[in-house]
């Protein structure tokens, strides 16, 4: 009995080793913003094509682009557009868009904020809503936790140094931030547009502020017209192998749109 089981196991092991052609290992490196999404997509892909293993490592967008160009990795992940100097022998694909909007309580009378006002609020120069056309009330300014993609995008866009932030609170997860701003009329936070639009539809009392006259919506983000947004890009070498192409086709298809939305990003058509 035991011998039979052992023989079966052995046969199973041998059959899985005997066909090296089916076994593919894809190396993915780059932006830590995309990595969680990539790992979800990879999990789904691996369960569909059991012979494929996808290794994901982070190390920043620049490394992802460089590794894909040099062939160290099969696929590079970048959360910024390619510079002209990087465009040489690589092909890039837009995987999704990441957009961040300033969010206040629905009862806050402020309708929009200029870039200077936003920087003023986040660096502590503006501390009362009255100074930006609102009520006489202190501004409860909420920043995001170190390392989050929203913070990276926000501070890069406005050019605020990490040490210059003067927030009153720091929120981690989207839900933490959403609950805080929904229960505090004087709070302001910046949140992923994908996640906050969904909350507005569900009746959470929050309001997304337009930026530079552009409405904060997933539509505007997908179109690339919302200022505080960035593309999430995959980069492959121009002579990439068939398995890489197959994986790229898969992650650009609508089959992973639910995963993209789960990570609060906006899929591109």
């Amino acid at each position: 009995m035991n011998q039979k089981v052992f023989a079966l196991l052995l046969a199973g092991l041998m059959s899985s080793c005997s066909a090296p052609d089916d076994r593919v290992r894809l190396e993915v490196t780059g932006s830590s913003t995309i990595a969680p999404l990539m790992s979800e997509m990879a999990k789904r892909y691996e369960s569909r094509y059991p012979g494929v293993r996808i290794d994901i490592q982070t190390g920043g967008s620049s490394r992802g682009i460089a590794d894909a160009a040099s062939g160290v990795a099969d696929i590079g992940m970048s959360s910024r557009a390619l510079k002209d100097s990087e465009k040489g022998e690589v092909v890039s694909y837009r995987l999704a868009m990441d957009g961040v909007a300033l969010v206040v309580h629905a009862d806050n009378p402020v309708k929009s904020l200029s870039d200077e006002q936003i920087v003023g609020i986040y660096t502590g120069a503006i501390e009362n809503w009255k100074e930006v056309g609102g009520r006489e009330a202190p501004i409860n300014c909420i920043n995001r936790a170190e390392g989050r993609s929203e913070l990276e995008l926000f501070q890069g866009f406005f050019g605020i140094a990490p040490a210059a932030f003067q927030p009153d609170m720091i929120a981690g997860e989207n839900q933490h931030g959403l609950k805080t701003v929904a229960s505090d009329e004087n709070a302001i936070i910046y949140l992923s547009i994908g996640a906050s639009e969904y909350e507005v539809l569900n009746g959470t009392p929050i309001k997304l502020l337009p930026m530079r006259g552009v409405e904060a919506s997933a539509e505007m983000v997908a179109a690339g017209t919302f200022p505080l947004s960035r593309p999430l890009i995959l980069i492959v070498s121009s002579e990439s192998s068939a398995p890489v192409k197959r994986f790229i086709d898969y992650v650009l298809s609508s089959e992973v749109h639910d995963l993209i939305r789960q990570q609060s990003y906006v899929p591109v058509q």
Partner: protein
Amino acid sequence: MDSSGDRWLLWVLRGSAVIAGGVTLLVILFLVAASVPAFQHLGVVRFFTDASWHPAEYAAEGTFNLWPMLVGSLLVTAGAVLIAAPLGVGAAVFCQYYAPGAVAATYRRAIELLAGIPSVVFGFWGLIVLVPMINQWHPPGQSLLAAVLILSLMILPTIAMISDASMAQLPDEYRFSAEALGLTRWATVRGVMLPAAAPGVLTGLILATGRAIGETLAVLMVCGNIVQIPTSAFEPVRTLTANIALEMAYAAGDHRASLFVTGLILTFIVVALVFIVEKINRRFSSLIP
């Protein structure tokens, strides 16, 4: 009982003891191993002398001061224990010496229920009920005070239940003798029962302290998470646990390693607490019949 059954049981027990002990050791070893890069690149001193906590992937680019968060953890914990200790011990005294049987039984169930509420529920309740109330009083609401209040609710059952159990273990003769001497009920409790139950009560306090210092999610949701040494109870703080939970998912390199150092500091504090419990039990064991 036959001896082969005994021997079999003994080995199963030895096995499970080795697994339980081994897992603890492995966790600590892992923590130390994961912290090593941070100590190599930053040393020990920088965690307490850097200008601020603005971590980066490479040691040279960031600042890594953990001191405000250590202070934050200690303040939140001390505050919670200060509030929960009198309430918890009071609840136990009430159950043991004042409440009629039926009331005491119901009261105990209520305390057990409080102990069973998941921490995320406390955190959520704190965020949408308690924090807005404090915000009305003194913005921003998410603060040291909010964290202390939530945490004291969470550790109250631990203190009450352990105090209750240690008072229940005292021999009836203590009370009978005290009553025979004509002492009032309060004099009996204060002069005889509480001192006799003190080691158990102290153990309960320290276990509660351990829980308080390790609590993460509920505290993270209400403490505001600003890295600073607060000058008032209405100012936000960040605890060591909140620091790990907030940043671990996105940290890399030396930033990640310094979060493991944060965990190592927490472990040291908890080990110290366990050591104190051991000391108390040894000192008082001769006094307990």
